[in-house]
């Protein structure tokens, strides 16, 4: 068994263990975004797809490189964008109902609790 292979295997096993440890802590609430984020992460295969280009010098190579690039790029970009879209929806407080947006400072001031709530909402919206 070559050293290179042994190194690769070591990395694989350790990464598996790290993965189990890290992902075991993700709450069920986030399991869908988690799966979609890991989905994007396996899009790293794009690196492999692009590297085909180094030795591809005929039609077979080009066709395989093309299909693999399309697949992997769709995987990466789509995965990250949709994960971001989902995570943006997770808010600690519900946003103000449509219609009472921003323009009612006097209402917020009249009630300290609501005012704070409004502030938090505004903050979380600017964040997103």
């Amino acid at each position, binding site marked *: 068994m070559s050293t290179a*292979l042994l190194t*690769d295997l070591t990395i*694989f096993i350790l*990464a*598996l*263990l*790290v993965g*189990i440890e*890290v*992902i075991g*802590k993700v*709450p*069920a*609430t*986030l*399991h*869908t975004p*988690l*799966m*979609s*984020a*890991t*989905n*994007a*992460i396996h*899009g*790293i295969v*794009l*690196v*492999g797809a692009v*590297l*085909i*280009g*180094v030795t*591809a*010098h005929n039609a077979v190579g080009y066709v395989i490189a*093309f*299909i*693999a*690039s*399309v*697949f*992997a*790029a*769709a*995987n*990466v*970009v*789509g*995965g*990250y*964008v*949709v994960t*971001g879209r*989902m*995570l943006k929806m*997770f*808010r*600690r407080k*519900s946003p103000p109902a449509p219609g009472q947006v921003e323009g009612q400072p006097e209402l917020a001031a009249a009630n300290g609790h609501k005012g704070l709530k409004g502030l938090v909402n505004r903050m979380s919206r600017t964040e997103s």
Partner: protein
Amino acid sequence: MSGFNGYIQLVYVLVAAMFVMGLHLMNSPATARRGNQVAQAGMVIAVVATLILLIHSGTVTATGWVVIIVGSLLGSAVGLWAARTVQMTAMPQLVSAFNAVGGGAAALVAVYGYYEAESRVTGVLGTTSVFTVLDVLIGSVTFSGSIIAAGKLQGVIPGQPIIFKGARLVNLGLAVVAIGTAAYMFSTPSLPALLIVVLASLAFGVMMVLPIGGADMPVVISLLNAFTGTAVAMAGFVIQNWALIVAGALVGASGSILTKLMADAMNRSLANIILGGFGTGDSAIAVEAAGDAQVRSIAADDAAIQLAYASKVIIVPGYGLAAAQAQHGVAELATILEDRGIEVSYAIHPVAGRMPGHMNVLLAEANVPYPQLKEMDEINPEFARADVALVIGANDVTNPAARRPGNDISGMPILDVDQAKSIIVVKRSMGTGYAGMENELYFDPKTSMFFADAKKAMAQLTAAVKTLVG
């Protein structure tokens, strides 16, 4: 490893670390977005490093560049479009589609590696072949299996199990052909043999997912996710790239954990699900109620009174809620109750939806704040303090029969809805869930049945509560 490649590998190590950190930040909704951004930044770095490697190698032909760049841009555009336009209810299909392309790309990397090594006449290294074969096997199964899963979820392919006589024999045959041919390749490297492995694996993937019912999809998607990760890790071995190995291992671990969680939540073994033929499609098959059973039905006004004068309400959503597109209606009702000072929370069973955590996303989309979304273990002790448990479109996961031995769902973890002081069940008919058995909860004297479509029911309840409290 030459000096330059060594530096690039170092960059890949950094990328791998960023993936781990990104996933670590996913352990709380407050930091999850940052986690996704960290992983995304890692991906950008990996791609840039790879492009530098390509330029440095100096062997990429003009056509090669065009192929790679056009391919990547085209793929990115498709991915972007899909991610921007997808409905949250259709998330499982999209995740499945990404599993398919990821697995497919991983398989192609190995196929090309093999083709290239053969054409160089230097022969194929023994170790390369093991990983090549595993990559091609797993990647191909994932590709076709995920397409079928996505088709079922989208309703293009019927959701109910598709079983025909001798299907298992065909599966066995395909497995023997794929593995046998793979074994032959170790003694005699041959490209046609690899293509046979590809075809047999593709067919096996189709045959594996076809007999699995719609309600088992959370397990199937998780499993295919784990497969994709493993295929990508194998591709990492083939091209000796640490970023792929680490990323693939992380995804493999994640998919495996979720697969186990989902299977446990349904109280079924993985083998049982894969061998399949149990889960039906959607759980709305109307069956006549048992003759002597007594159920109490309730009108919207009475249900509204119960809700409006409660001090604690727990909402129990199931897939029926999503199927009826009633999540916004539920959120609206909950907001009105909260404005009255009523404590509202949601009890989310792990398999409420078509993929792990699906229901949380659907409710988050309807602007339900995430602190209200409670996991099963967290919410179960709270049912005893709840004045009303409002069950919408959930069935088997609320059936107290699961606590007794000797039936189909014995031992399945359930939500302790029957502990609540009163229970309102919103349901279209007395139909059974996908386990096909009566829900004892419906015959509990504390339970009232509100027979209506979930979306209409929410509108009626909201209107009734509004008129009641002015």
